């Protein structure tokens, strides 16, 4: 068993009364106090097109997420390591189009299910739980760079 601690500090003067949040979580296996003990390592990937592609494929055979058990307690960290505040990655979930446009969300079509989560501009990071659902690619994590000049992301999955 490993001990992985993630501490987030959030501060803001956005309101008259300052906001200050500090949280530490110890990443544990689903429903237990046993720590997560697997990780992909910190991956650095460069993109040179604006195509909408998979970053992580849920429970993919032979893929980087091959060992991630779905519906557990995996955590996913992604960062846009660029410094340009106008360039961003669109992070999404579901089926990647592999083309220049995002796949549309279509509840009625099990093969086209996709939704955008949000944009990571230069320097932005995110940390989310990841379900790694493998049914029809619903749980795939996708990325779409905003420009075709070089953009780089770093990401890491902690899992059981």
């Amino acid at each position, binding site marked *: 068993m490993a001990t992985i601690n993630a*501490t987030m500090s959030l501060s803001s003067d*956005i309101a008259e009364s300052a906001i200050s*949040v500090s949280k530490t*979580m*110890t990443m544990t296996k689903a*429903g237990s106090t046993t720590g997560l*003990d697997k990780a992909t390592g910190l991956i650095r990937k460069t993109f040179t097109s604006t195509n909408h592609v998979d970053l992580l494929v849920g429970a993919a055979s032979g893929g980087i997420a091959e060992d991630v058990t779905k519906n557990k307690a995996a955590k996913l960290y992604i960062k846009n390591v660029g410094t340009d505040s106008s360039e961003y990655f669109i992070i999404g979930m579901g089926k990647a189009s592999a083309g220049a446009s995002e796949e549309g969300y279509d509840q009625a079509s099990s093969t086209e299910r996709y939704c955008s989560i*949000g944009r990571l501009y230069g320097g932005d990071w995110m940390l989310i739980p990841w379900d790694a659902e493998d049914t029809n690619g619903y*749980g795939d994590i996708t990325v779409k760079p905003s420009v075709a000049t070089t953009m780089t992301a770093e990401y890491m999955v902690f899992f059981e």
Partner: protein
Amino acid sequence: MATTTASLTITSSDLVGDALSLSTTNNVYKAGTTTGLEQTTGIASVYLTATTQIDLFNPVRTAAADAGKNSWIYICNNSEDETEYATIKISNQTVGRLYAGDFMWMPWNRSARFVDVSLTPSVATGMRIEYGLFYESLEHLASTDARTFQDE
């Protein structure tokens, strides 16, 4: 201009052969700028006593002015029971589970599609959730209730 800063440190001395230490920090800005976000819901705390799926944050109307603007979401499950979790969904697709003590921080670019962010507690015995939204623009719908209540 407001400054909102989010920092993260991930450490482990025994996950891999050498100690793991990752630190990052950034300010959150309006889309495509270096101007800080200026609005927030604040950090709310709710105590949920049903396993009903609820919307924490709603999508925008079609062609609303704030569609596509930048937002950031913070959610934390403050339960102390390691078996309890909150399932987080976006567009009714499961993102993942926040177990007791887990938090998440993610961007959210609101659109007129069904990109609501929802949460479902795993138990009905009571679960305290903290959440907040830092945003660039949020449309407040005009009230449709024009009734006047008079003294009885």
